[in-house]
């Protein structure tokens, strides 16, 4: 079990121990991990294994893979090991806070290791043990799941990792990113934090999760957010403005590419991708148009990847 979260443990002297009020900062480590303690534990685990602990990217995106620390860093020959939490937005998954399992905003814990180490599976299993999963009582399986992101021009082979039948992690060996072969291949782990926490804490609703160890729930933090954002995503968002934003992001991406600035260009590709997801949630993109929009985003992301490769002097 981890040291993280234990904090500066108060050790009252023996005689007056019972007289003192229970210091509320001390957490009982035999209890399942709270949401935040689980994140801290993973940070600690991956930090001690050589990962940079990064912070979330400050843009709206559909998955942790969009974080430049994954997408751009998966390209090129240099070694790169990083771990971070990334908030993810999936407008169509919004359920107005009424579904215990679905959210339009949730967190992924993302680990990227390049080149993929030979003991990646063991490292990963070690992280599950660290957050309290007991392999003598739980059934962990690696079930084929090939990953593909049409908007990033990326694909990889790997598994979804099941714990007692529940998918808790996406485990991928990137083969291509932005249309380029990964040389070398990076291993990517994407943990669904809310799912894992519901599992560890044995909760049926995401909103009942203990966010910390002092009684604050996930619902206290995010329920109203889910209600309002679902309404905005599905009903309120100004579609004309969104179409306009999409065009502007695409144009800005291209201007940045002309200026040989792959990072700003990539940011605009992320922006365009999210605006497309919002338009999709508003139901204003027809089936026929859908492919065209995905293709447009892919071209932007690929353009940014190409510029990044060129800027670094890497050959395809």
């Amino acid at each position, binding site marked *: 079990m981890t040291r993280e979260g234990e904090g500066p443990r108060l050790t009252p002297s023996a005689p007056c121990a019972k007289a003192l009020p229970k210091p509320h900062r001390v957490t009982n480590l035999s209890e399942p991990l709270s949401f935040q303690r689980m994140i801290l534990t993973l940070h600690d685990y991956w930090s001690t294994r050589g990962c940079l602990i990064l912070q979330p990217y400050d843009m709206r995106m559909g998955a942790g893979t969009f974080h430049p620390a994954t997408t751009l860093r998966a390209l090129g020959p240099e070694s790169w090991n990083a771990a971070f939490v990334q908030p993810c937005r999936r407008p169509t998954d919004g359920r107005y806070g009424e579904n215990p*399992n679905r959210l339009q905003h949730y967190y992924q814990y993302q680990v990227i290791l390049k080149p993929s180490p030979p003991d990646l599976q063991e490292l990963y299993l070690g992280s599950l043990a660290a957050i309290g999963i007991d392999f003598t009582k739980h*059934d962990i399986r*690696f079930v084929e799941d090939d990953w593909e992101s049409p908007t990033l021009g990326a694909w990889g082979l790997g598994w979804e990792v099941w714990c007692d039948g529940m998918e808790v992690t996406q485990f991928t060996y990137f083969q291509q990113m932005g249309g380029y072969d990964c040389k070398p291949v990076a291993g990517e782990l994407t943990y669904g934090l809310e799912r894992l926490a519901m599992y560890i804490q044995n909760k049926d609703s995401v909103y009942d999760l203990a966010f910390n160890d002092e009684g604050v729930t996930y619902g206290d933090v995010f329920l109203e957010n889910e209600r309002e954002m679902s309404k905005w995503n599905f009903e309120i968002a100004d579609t004309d403005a969104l179409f306009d934003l999409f065009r502007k992001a695409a144009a800005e991406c291209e201007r940045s590419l002309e200026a040989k600035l792959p990072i700003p260009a990539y940011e605009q590709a992320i922006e365009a991708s999210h605006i497309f997801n919002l338009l999709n949630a508003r139901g204003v993109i027809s089936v026929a148009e859908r492919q065209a929009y995905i293709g447009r985003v892919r071209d932007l992301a690929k353009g940014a990847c190409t510029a990044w490769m060129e800027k670094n002097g890497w050959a395809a």
Partner: protein
Amino acid sequence: MGSVTDFLLELRSEEIPARMQEKAREDLARLFAAELDKAGLKAAEVVSYATPRRLALILKGLPEQTAAVSEETKGPRAGAPPQALEGFLRKTCLTADQLVERDGVLFAVVDKPGRATAEVLAAAIPAVIRAFPWPKSMRWGADSLSTESLRWVRPLQGIVALFGSDVVPCEIAGVVSGAATVGHRFHHPGTITIGSADDYVEKLRACHVIVDGTERRGIIALGATMAARKAGLTLVEDEGLLFENAGLTEWPMPLLGRFDEAFLAVPPEVIQLTARVNQKYFVCRDAAGKLANAFVCVANIDAVDGGEKIVAGNQKVLAARLSDARFFYETDLKVPLADQAGKLEKIVFHEKLGTVADKVERVAKLAEWLAAEKIVPNCDPALARRAAELAKADLVTGMVGEFPELQGLMGGYYAAAQGEDPAVAAAIRDHYKPVGQGDDVPTDPVTVAVALADKLDTIAGFFMKNLKPTGSKDPFALRRAALGILALTLGNNLRGEVVGWLAQARQLLKEQGIDDERSEPEPAETLRAELVQQADRVFMRDVRDFMADRLKVQQREAGVRHDLIDAVFALGGEDDLVRLLARVKALQAFVGTEDGANLLAGYKRAANILKKEEWEAGAVNPAPEPAEAALAAALDAAEPKATAAIEAEQFEDAMAALAILRAPIDAFFDQVTVNDADPAKRAARLGLLARMRDAVHKVADFAKIEG
């Protein structure tokens, strides 16, 4: 005979997809056998295994050495010019005294000693690994800096290669062969050392790995059956799930779990599909044969708590899945199918054939027409129309969005719940049928009308746009649609001309402004009428050929000869499939008899003569020979009988009528000279043969019959 030894190879990797394991096991055995064959080696017995984490091969009874061979190369004649001899010596690296002379020709004979089998194996292992035909493979690790690095299904972790008890040394992509492997990922993560092929299976078993997939499947089948029985239930057997679960486990432990009975309000197919596709669970039935609120999952460990936590976890996952499914079901139920159908305007069926809503409109009109014209008998045209209008509406429901394979079925449920006529609900449910040879063929008239109309519209549309199947490519599944039409027609005895139904379907497409694909630009006004006629002819010809072709394929399975189908089609004008097939079947029975075979021979002889000769029609021989007169009499008797029988569609009777021609035609050829010197006699006899040929043609074009 030298001593023989067993060889063991284990290729250990990260988890191999379940669906690939069986083929990989076979490929390993096949590729290895091929490599050994090149060295002249053959094992007495070959066994291969696959688990999620390893492929293994055991070759029993390999000799320790390959056989010594003597290779002979033919050289020049003895006494040939010195240049020729020198050239040969240079090529073979021999001296003249080493050559052997036989029958005046020089031979170079090189004796190659046997090689150590271990050497052959050491070379074969990397060769097989590099050539392995995985459906999808990947690169990994530091070596993947180069795209030339080894590709394997997932990272390759270890190689055990033992010939007898000796390691066969080899290295590939940094993995060095040895005798060590690992046991079960959680039960026995440490290394184990294998002694030889003999103890491989048992050593792994002791470390919680059952290497034999057949054995794992047996354990799952038995364990799942017993778990269900213990709960008073019956397991719904599922071969696919058995293989999949055996491919996900090295130590399978079937466990029974439950779900809330309230979920049984969701259609059983939905529950079964959710359990099967998403979770790989088996489902169970109760004593009454109804789906029970239980499932069997297969864990990969023998948990210390007996699986209590595993079952609890799986129950929770399934409950979440089922509550999602129930949400879709309940949401869908609230929207009338007719409203859903309106949304089909947004789904493109094919860029050249409009939206799904356009297709629905055509299919509705066509189904109504098939009913009104009594092509589908006892079918209320209004119900056929209604069913067709709603048939595709479930494509936009949440449930079918989640599980596309439930199309039709969900529409049927929603229609029934929303108070549609039961015949309409059944037609919505089953109108995709039959989806392949062997699938149930609908018989309910409303279903038949919609199912037929849907497929006719598809074939007519794609043929108009010249998007026909070619070779192995059939992107719009037109062959399957054609087989569906044939099965619906023949299975329900639908009378009428299929080509005419397709023409009607084309007419409805045209009414929507969808026209034949034209390679030419807009034709001149004066030519237009002619071109339209030509397009009609081309369409009719193409769809007739296509349907005839499909009929042959379909009937081949039933043992009907394709040449007989051709023989009946060749008569022309026979587009009523039921009648056509009855005729073909009678014909097949007939040509199988001695009378039939002989008549066919007689017909062919007559046809051959007639092909070469010319004669004046209508000639009469005033003094016919007896055999000639007998044939004429037989024809007089047979012709009206055959004609009447054909009109009454009594094809066996028609054949029987023709059978009486057999003896007279045989006698005619035996006793009568056709090419008589007298032109009148000759013409009369040829005329008689032509009559015989034409009589036979009433039944079929015998020239198309093989043999």
